[in-house]
Each structure stands twice: as structure tokens, then as C-alpha cells.
């Protein structure tokens, strides 16, 4: 089993076989998580600190549960309420925490590249839980695992990603991961929500959702941030829902067994029809949440193994 990385900062640095290694391990943790006794000891004795410079409920909870199931001592730091407010720089915060000898640092930050910067200054393993609009690797990995379990494979699928791609780190990590695994990608959204240079991404771009969804195997919806709803990027919520909201009618052109995904939290009636989101035959949204814990357990396990090997070597 090879996963030669000190940190998990993005999908960009991972090779296809490393992604498979991680997903295979995550499969075993998904099984473990369904047992009455959910404990394993991969992280026993290790300290995991979750540093979230940006609000998060689900991702933070997912990382916390993952760490606890593997036996780590988990601590959550709400960075918005802390010394950052007092003017401490990111690097000073990192150095302060580093002095407490954490082993795993889970970081979310509103600025792209901030987690990379922090990782350069600490001597523990760093997991990127989302940096600006750059990457959110564990989300892409949990999406990949969900797809693999639902479709039986993670290659040669036709996958549509719809919505606010320009501002989405989830979309970037997914585009990279699904591209590396040799899938056919379609991006759907209004031009204001598509990133610049998109023609060089090796994807197909659609402004018309029905056209874009034709015969796809997977539909990934993205969350539309509240602050982008009014006038700036789209004219209104209702026009957006009309053109880019996923409902049964639009989904009808996809393959009959196409699955529907959403990273959450959902805006029902903005980007996705509520009934569709709850349809257990189409929606795998709850599976995504479940796989999230499994993937994070696998990621921390692999990084902890490398950490222990490095320390033994010293």
C-alpha cells in the first residue's frame, strides 16, 4: 500500500493508484463504521487538532468523528473566536499550535493557499479541509468513494458538475480527481459562475442544463452561496432555479440509473428540488455524508502511518 505523502493538501498531488489505495482503505472503514463497536486504534496516542478559520458544522463533525473512531485525542479550535481576532498572523498561530505537538492538523481557511502556507511551518501532518476556492480534497475523495460504490467503478463514467463552479473548491478537487481517473466531465452553469480559462480544463462546458445532463451517469450539484444569489452573479434565485435547479424533469434526460449528489448543505428549491434530494432511488446525498467519515478515517490513517515511519527514521 503506497501513499507517499506527508500532508493531504489537494488532489493535484495525488496519483490514480494512490487515490485507489485511499478509497480501498476507506471501504474497510465504511464497513467498520456500520458495526456496533466502531473503534479502531490507528490513531491511538495521537493528537488531532481541527482548526477551522471558516464556519463549518458537517466537515468539522466528520473529521472529529473520524479521529475519535480511530482513537485520536481530538480538539476543536474555533479560530474565528480566537487569537486571529486579536491580530495574530496565520503563521504565528501555526507555530503556537505546533509547539503543543499535534500529530494531525485539520485546517479550513477562507483564502486559497493558506493551508499550503501553514503546512510549510509545522512538523505534523496537515489535512486540507477546504482553502478558499482552491481545494477540498476529502470532499472529492468521499464523492469518488460514493460514486465507486454506487456505480461499481470510478472510470469511464459521464459526470456532470452543475452550479457555481467558479467559487467552488469542491468543484476544483472533483474536476481534478475525476479527470485523473479518466472520466468524461461536463460542467454546467451560467457563464458568470464558470471559472476563467475553463476551455483548457479538458472538460465539456454547457450553459443549457438539459443539454449538459443528457445521458450522464452522475449529476453533482453544487451549493449556491447565499451572497451570490442577488444580482451580482445571477439575476435572482427563482431564475436560477428555473434554469439550473435540478428537478425530475431535467434529470429525465440523464441515464435512467443516474445518481444525484450534493456536497451539502443544500438550498432546497434553489439548486435542487427537495423531493428529488430525498428520493432514495436517485439521491446518494446521505451516502456521501457516511463516506465522508470513512474517507477521513482512511486519510488520517495513511498520513499517521507515514508520520510514524518518519519519526522512527529520525
Amino acid at each position, binding site marked *: 500500500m503506497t501513499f507517499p505523502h506527508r500532508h493531504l493538501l489537494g488532489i493535484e498531488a495525488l496519483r490514480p493508484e494512490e487515490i485507489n489505495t485511499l478509497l480501498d482503505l476507506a471501504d474497510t472503514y465504511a464497513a467498520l463504521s456500520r458495526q456496533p463497536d466502531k473503534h479502531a486504534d490507528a490513531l491511538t496516542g495521537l493528537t488531532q487538532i481541527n482548526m477551522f478559520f471558516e464556519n463549518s458544522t458537517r466537515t468539522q463533525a466528520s473529521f472529529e468523528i473520524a479521529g475519535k473512531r480511530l482513537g485520536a485525542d481530538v480538539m476543536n479550535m474555533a479560530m474565528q473566536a480566537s487569537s486571529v481576532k486579536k491580530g495574530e*498572523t496565520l503563521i504565528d498561530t501555526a507555530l503556537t499550535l505546533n509547539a503543543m505537538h499535534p500529530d494531525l492538523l485539520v485546517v479550513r481557511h477562507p483564502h*486559497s493557499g493558506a493551508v499550503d502556507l501553514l503546512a510549510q511551518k509545522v512538523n505534523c501532518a496537515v489535512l486540507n479541509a477546504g482553502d478558499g476556492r482552491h481545494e477540498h480534497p476529502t470532499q472529492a475523495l468521499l464523492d469518488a468513494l460514493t460514486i465507486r460504490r454506487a456505480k461499481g467503478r470510478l472510470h469511464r463514467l459521464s459526470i456532470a458538475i452543475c452550479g457555481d463552479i467558479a467559487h467552488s473548491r469542491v468543484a*476544483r478537487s472533483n474536476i481534478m480527481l475525476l479527470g485523473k481517473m479518466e472520466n468524461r466531465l461536463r460542467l454546467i452553469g451560467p457563464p458568470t459562475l464558470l471559472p476563467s*480559462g*475553463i476551455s483548457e480544463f479538458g472538460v465539456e462546458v454547457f450553459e443549457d442544463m438539459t443539454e449538459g445532463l443528457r445521458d450522464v451517469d452522475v449529476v453533482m450539484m453544487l451549493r449556491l452561496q447565499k451572497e451570490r444569489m442577488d444580482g451580482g452573479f445571477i439575476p435572482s434565485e427563482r431564475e436560477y432555479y428555473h434554469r439550473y435547479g435540478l428537478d425530475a424533469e431535467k434529470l429525465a434526460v440523464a441515464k435512467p440509473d443516474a445518481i444525484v449528489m450534493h456536497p451539502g448543505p443544500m438550498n432546497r428549491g434553489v439548486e435542487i428540488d427537495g423531493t428529488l434530494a430525498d428520493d432514495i432511488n436517485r439521491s446518494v446525498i446521505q451516502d456521501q455524508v457516511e463516506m465522508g467519515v470513512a474517507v477521513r478515517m482512511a486519510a488520517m490513517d495513511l498520513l499517521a502511518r507515514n508520520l510514524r515511519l518518519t519519526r522512527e527514521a529520525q
Partner: protein
Amino acid sequence: MTELNLINARLVDPETGTVSKGGVRVKDGRIVEHLPYGARPSGPCVDCDLKYLAPGIVDIGVKVCEPGERHKESYGSAGLAAAAGGVTTMVTRPDTTPAIDSPETLEFVTRRANEAAPVNVLVMAALTKGRAGREMTEIGFLMDAGAVAFTDCDRVVTDTKVFSRALSYAQGLGALVIAHPQDPGLSRGAAATSGKFASLRGLPAVSPMAERMGLDRDIALVEMTGARYHADQITCARALPPLARAKANGLDITAGTSIHHLTLNALDVADYRTFFKLKPPLRDEQDRLAIADAVKSGLIDIISSMHTPQDEESKRLPFEEAASGAVALETLLPAAMQLYHADLIDLPTLWRAMALNPAKRLGLESGRLSIGAPADLVLFDPDAPFLMDRAALRSKSQNTPFDGARMQGRVLATYVAGRCVYERS
């Protein structure tokens, strides 16, 4: 004053566009005679050993952080850096804290500069008070106090009424206005140039079109007012056609670019290296080559260092939050040699853009090798290789994107009015 003969050099003459073997005789701070190769006149001689002798660089747009942030750069440290970089005239920016927008501040700065810097310093003043874009500064008084040009630096005067009046008033006095062509609405919040790279890195980005839009607007106002106008940095191909048209139409317009936009591109930012964060942001390779071509053709008149010192604290931040700008007084010449070695721009053309044109634009006698010109000279070896180490820079701030780079081309000696202000040991 004493005499000096610089002999057996290769003379880089931007006026004639030639490189020829020979020397110059300097007396009372001026070039008084051209010496044939091999001549050894009486009096003190420096044998240049067939290295290259060129007019000293006239660098428009140097930020020295006095008043306000002397810890980032003082006239002393900037002057030493300039001397070591072959820059014999620094034309300094008014984007200090407070801004240089009154004759009193200007006098303070001029006095500091004369005390501390071993090279010539000319000072620019703000175009509007506090660089706030609302009221014009005392352009007349400031000219009397020695301001050579008026600029709000990287701030765009967005109110076209205010800007057009400032241009008109400046026109009446014959003052040169330097502006930063950029549409501030389109470029708001941007940290990179839009495109695949910025999208992959998740950085807020601006289309190069914002520069073209800013230039289009400024050209219209220059046509309206007849002002003397210089665009500080033209960095993208899209801005070149309107610039060419404006020049062809006879407007009093010149344009500059920065050495970084000529030698680096957006991909150099790599993993969020904040020393590569500039304003405007680095462009793609096609733009870089188009700009180099425009310098070669003369469409772009001037190359500047856009020397912008930033301390470690303002750069050790996530890319979006980090300050923009790079120091470049000492790296301007070696970086320019990259263009020479890549066969993009030859030496006389480089010196036309780094010395002759800026001097002409400011009405200075320097920037040339002709008889009677001030003996502001740089002796350099375009081939000498070295590993750039930012810790060795003389600037108080060492935010150079060339740290660790293999460079070629070193300054051997710098003369200001015939006096040696730097000699490489």
C-alpha cells in the same frame, strides 16, 4: 573637479543604437570626449577590459518608504541598492505614508534624498491630495519645489471629472502626469490574471482587459486635454493596439512596463509564492513576449524596476492577503540581461528603454553617452553568472522574485557625475 578616463570599453550607445569599442573622457562630471579603442590619455585611467559601458539607468517609479515606513526602505538603503544596480537616477514615487502631496513633504523628501543617497534622486508628487482622487494637488508649487511628474501611483483617479481637470491643469503647466491604466471596478479584489492557472489555484483574478479599458479611458482624456501623459505599466498585448493608435494620432503619450512583466509570467507564482504577487499581476507568456516585442519596436518607451519594498510580515501571508510588489533596483540589470541573452532585445535598445527614453521624458540630459552629457555611467559584464541570494541585497526589504535564481549579468562599477559610487569588489 577631477578628470577620469574610462578606456578600452564596449560603449553601449542608445542614441546611435550601436555597441562599439572605445572609451570616454570625463571632466567636471560630464563626458567631454570620446576616446578611440586603445587610446591611453594622460590623467587617471580605468581600463574597462572590454566590458560594457553604458549610460546609467534612469528608473522611473522607485518606491522609497520615506516618509512613513523607513524600516522597509530608506533613501540610504535604496541609494546603495541603486548604485549597486547601475541605477544612477532614481525617480521616486509619492505613495508613501503620508503621500507626497504638498511642497512641504516634497522638500523633506528631497532633503533626505540628497543627504542619504549616493545617486541622483528626482521626486514625483501625488496628482491628487492624499492620492484620494478628489482634489488635485498644488501642481505649480510642487513643480517649483522640484517635482518631476505627478502620479497617484497604483491608485486610479476614478472620477473622470477630477482626472480631466487635473490633466488640464497639468497641461497648462507642462507637467507630466503618470497614471496606472486599469479599470478599478473590473480588477477589484484580484490577486492574479484570469485564466487556467488562477482558476486552478482558486485565486480571485482580473482579465487583462481591465488594463486596456483603463488605457482607453486615459487616452480619451489625453485627447480631450492635450496633457503630457505616461502610462506607468503596460503589461498585456491587448493594450498595445490602442497605445499605437494614440501615438500615431500625435498625442503626447508614452508608456512604460516593469522588468518583472518582461521576465516572469503568471505560472511563476507556482504554489502561492507571494514574492511574485505584483500589481498588475503577472500575465501569461504570450503577453510577456508581446510586451518585449513592443519594447523592441519602441511602442513601449520605458522599462522600470517598479521597486516596491515590502517587509517579511506583509508577504508571509496567504496569497490574497499578502502585499503586492517586489524590490528590483539591484536586479533590474541582471534581469534585463535575460532579455538580451534570449535574443529578445539587444543592448542599445535596452538602454534606450532604461536610460535614454526616461531621461528624455523627464527632460534630463542624462541617459546618453554624447559629449556634454552628465557622466552617469554603468560598467557591466552581461555574461557574468551568479546565484541570486536575496540576503545579499542592499535594500532593507528583500522581497525579490529572483531569490535563488541563476542570473547572468553583473554591474562592475557605477559612476554618478564621474564619481564612482559603486565598485564590485
